[in-house]
């Protein structure tokens, strides 16, 4: 009773859609399904994947496929998927429609062929059997490569390199991260921006401290003492400051302004840049 590994897991890690599909199955009651259908239905990566599977199953050369037959099989596969309560993505339905159109085209007299230059769909637009085959052939190639990559991956998983976990100064090749290597300065600023943006989203929870306006006034003066040229307004607010602390600092600053101990100024009107310096 191998319940936990129906073929949904055969393809390795599941995609979001696969997960959904698998979840749908699970809700449906795995056991019953297993008995009822004896499923050997892989979860398909897309309509081409499914088509490909059908062709392989029929042991037909891609170049020999019959549109009529493949259409019937495809529709049947969709029907089975529906019975299994799988969510069928629009791409699958679109392919079904495409196949049906190809099939009907064959049946109809050749003359009525005007809807071709209509841009109907960005993903699948196939207008002839030849085009379908061409697509399938190309898809087959990449599928093979994907298989090759899988074996590389598995091989590589058996090999371990040394890595000192945790954060460290690293060896980033500039090739990979052009944004950081050449221009450290903007990167520095960027890094900070990122950090602050992050912080905004995350509520800070620091142990409560009592803040007094007096203390904060002293702190501000001390900070300004060190930097005669003035400090940035924002720099007055320590990281992770609680709202109460921010308010206290702000009040302290106002008090210092009132006492004419500090000046708060802008480099130019309407500038967002605000400086605080000693008077």
């Amino acid at each position, binding site marked *: 009773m191998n319940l936990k590994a129906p073929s949904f897991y055969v393809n390795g890690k*599941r995609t979001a859609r696969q997960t959904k599909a698998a979840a749908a199955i699970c809700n449906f009651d795995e056991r019953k399904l297993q008995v009822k259908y004896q499923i050997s239905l892989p979860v398909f990566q897309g309509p081409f994947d499914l088509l490909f599977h059908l062709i392989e199953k029929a042991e037909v050369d891609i170049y020999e496929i019959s549109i009529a037959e493949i259409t019937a099989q495809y529709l049947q596969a969709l029907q089975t998927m529906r019975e299994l309560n799988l969510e069928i993505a629009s791409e699958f339905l679109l392919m079904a429609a495409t196949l049906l159109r190809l099939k009907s085209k064959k049946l109809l007299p050749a003359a009525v062929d005007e809807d071709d230059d209509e841009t109907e769909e960005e993903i699948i637009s196939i207008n002839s059997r030849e085009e379908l085959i061409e697509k399938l052939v190309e898809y087959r190639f990449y599928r093979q490569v994907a298989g090759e*990559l899988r074996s590389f991956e598995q091989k590589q*998983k058996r090999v371990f390199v040394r890595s000192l976990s945790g954060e460290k100064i690293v060896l980033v090749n500039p090739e*990979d991260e052009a944004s950081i290597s050449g221009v450290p300065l903007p990167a520095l600023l960027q890094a900070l921006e990122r950090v602050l943006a992050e912080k905004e989203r995350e509520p800070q929870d620091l142990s409560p401290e009592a803040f007094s306006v007096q203390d904060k006034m002293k702190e501000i003066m001390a900070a300004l003492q060190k930097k005669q040229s003035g400090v940035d307004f924002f720099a007055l607010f320590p990281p992770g400051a609680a709202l109460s602390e921010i308010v206290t600092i702000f009040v302290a600053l106002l008090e210092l302004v009132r006492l004419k101990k500090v000046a708060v100024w802008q480099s130019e009107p309407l500038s967002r840049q605000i400086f605080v310096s000693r008077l």
Partner: protein
Amino acid sequence: MELKPLLEALLFVAEEPMPPARLAEITGAETREVRRVLKELQKDYEKADRGLQLVEIARGFQLSTKPAAAPVIEKLFSGEKSYSLSNAALETLAIIAYRQPVTRIEIESIRGVKTDKVLETLRKRRFIRIVGRKDVPGRPLLYGTTREFLKYFGLKDLSELPPLIMEEDKQ
């Protein structure tokens, strides 16, 4: 210290594959000489009583454990799961590797399905990166593979992938 032990020490601390030219630069030796000694080291490691191997990967040399040691090493790391890529991700990577630079729409037209989520995941894992924009209406982003991609699959370079044979006999 001689070049050989120096190279061994460097390869030990480097976490990335090291190109011979870079090793030459650091050690002050000729690149050719570095290459020669690397080959020698490679041979040394091949001996049965060594647990490491020196492989050429992503255009550099990297020390790693021999595959035969994997089961035991996995015991050391037990609990840490390593995930494999999905088939969708592999297909997408395959397309990008051969077609780069390539747009999302181009990838989707080959796979027949939406690919945006996969692309996002691949970018997060740094297997692909944006290499520019295509000069067509809408200026869509162009994707290419990275060194990280080569490393993950243990490839020296893209030429190690199967050759691209595709008949272009349309119409």
